[in-house]
């Protein structure tokens, strides 16, 4: 319906101003020449330069990236398997526990997840560092992946898989040649979700890390606890920029894919 009134227009304008103003202000002030972050003293890119010379930030960024790539990749494999089990494997003993363990981490406070994993790592005597953060991130993000992938699996026609099996595919071939291409968009968005969750996580990483591995969120948190700093503004701007470009590109690609698919379906329906 088109009851677009002045009320709706005001609600949207104010709402989106509220959502975007803080980040826009942050970006603007990252180019501030003054060390005082609330006083504007002219345009400058000096904080970006200082950021790039700051070894600690660079190595933290590298650790974060490594952890995110490893954990999101393992989480995607495990999460897709878990989704397949939830949707396709039928009944097996312990299924209720399994689905409970998939959904519980989604609502679990991070402090509890972090604490419990740390106590496990100490209990089994595992040295804390990159490995333990990867294990921790994989565990909670595989649950997000499996929710995303299973919602796609539920909606897709099981008879396609059965047809492949009837035509002589092995179950694995049927999965690789039929199921995987169809659920691929969900698997990719699951990976992206796991990747950003890992990049973003402060609490679980703080619990499970050791002195050898400091991630970017841990570094940022300890820096901003003392107050606002122009270097962090510059760092935030870079991160906001990467995310914005990434999300817009991804949405353009999915839009194009949807258009192409619609065109192909129309072609298929047309009588020869």
């Amino acid at each position, binding site marked *: 319906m088109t*009851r677009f009134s002045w009320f709706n227009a005001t609600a949207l304008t104010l709402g989106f101003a509220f*959502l975007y103003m803080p980040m826009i202000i*942050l970006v603007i002030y990252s180019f501030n020449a003054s060390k005082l972050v609330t006083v504007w003293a002219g345009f400058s890119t000096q904080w970006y330069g200082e950021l790039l010379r700051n070894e600690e930030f660079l190595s933290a960024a590298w650790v974060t990236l490594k952890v995110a790539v490893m954990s999101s990749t393992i989480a995607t494999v495990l999460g897709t398997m878990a989704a397949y089990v939830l949707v396709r494997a039928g009944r097996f003993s312990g299924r209720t526990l399994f689905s409970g363990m998939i959904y519980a981490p989604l*609502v679990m406070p991070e402090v509890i997840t972090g604490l419990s994993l740390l106590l496990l790592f100490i209990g089994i005597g595992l040295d804390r560092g990159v490995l333990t953060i990867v294990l*921790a991130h994989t565990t909670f993000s595989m649950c997000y992946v499996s929710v995303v992938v299973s919602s796609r699996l539920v909606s897709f026609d099981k008879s396609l898989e059965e047809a492949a099996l009837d035509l002589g595919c092995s179950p694995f071939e049927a999965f690789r040649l039929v199921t995987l291409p169809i659920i691929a968009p969900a698997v990719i968005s699951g990976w992206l979700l796991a990747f950003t969750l890992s990049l973003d996580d402060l609490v679980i990483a703080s619990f499970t890390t050791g002195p050898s591995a400091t991630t970017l969120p841990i570094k940022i948190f300890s820096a901003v606890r003392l107050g*606002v700093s122009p270097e962090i503004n510059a760092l935030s701007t870079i991160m906001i920029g990467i995310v914005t470009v990434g999300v*817009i590109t991804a949405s353009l690609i999915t839009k194009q894919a949807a258009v192409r698919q619609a065109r192909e379906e129309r072609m298929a329906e047309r009588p020869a």
Partner: protein
Amino acid sequence: MRRFVLIAVPYLWLVALFLIPFVIVLKIALSDVALARPPYLPQLDITGGWDSIRTFFSELDFENFWFLTTDDLYWKAYLSSLQIALFSTTLTLLVGYPIAYGMARAAPEWRPTLLMLVILPFWTSFLIRVYAWMGILSNEGLLNQFLLWLGVINEPLTILNTNAAVYIGIVYTYLPFMILPIYSALERMDDSLLEAAEDLGCSRLSAFWLVTIPLSKNGIIAGCFLVFIPVIGEFVIPSLLGGSGTLMIGKVLWEEFFSNRDWPVASAVAVILLLILVIPIILFQRNEQKQREAEG
């Protein structure tokens, strides 16, 4: 065989890294703090045979849970977390509903863009979005400069490091979780129902109360739970925007563990927090299930 492997791999992973850690938390919550490494007693020593396992279990007790009831810091922190979560969920609903409503009423070709604009902040770092408010809310921050310039106030307001800043931070970071379910409920609504209500003599406002609100009820409930549940255990927002007067249980647990190094008490705090969360989580899942059944 292949099916067995497919089930076993994710299953064992979750048992090892999700279920067993909880058992450990429970066990340490029942232990006593000690000057040792790791800093609690008793330690389970399986090599000692049945006797040592029996003495291990006899040494576990509920002392830490009693401690939580005697020191009023803890129950005050639980109550204040619940109160902050309740109040900020209400605020988020009041801010989010008009936005979701405006989006659902916008021209259809605009909706995907608006939707993307709501989701975009969700992909940006949570930490950075909270941090962005530190510069705005501080005494010499932009909000105070703006209000002074307008002449609304004569001296800067103290907002940062108070509960008000915590509320702003929560509403800001959790707003997409509120908007999305309400929007999807409103978008599905059949507009002829509103027209029918108006034809039958309803004013616009009463048609909104009697038709739109009830039809978006499931979206409202889902949005409220999606905000309320994670806010209770929130750590980043109270520690960056809140002050010494801001009591939230996530922060207490963090400090108990990292500053006081009292692992048994931290574990007991975690166990109680989980018990508190079980109730809203079950209610939330019932609502989701009802909605699924209603849809098909």
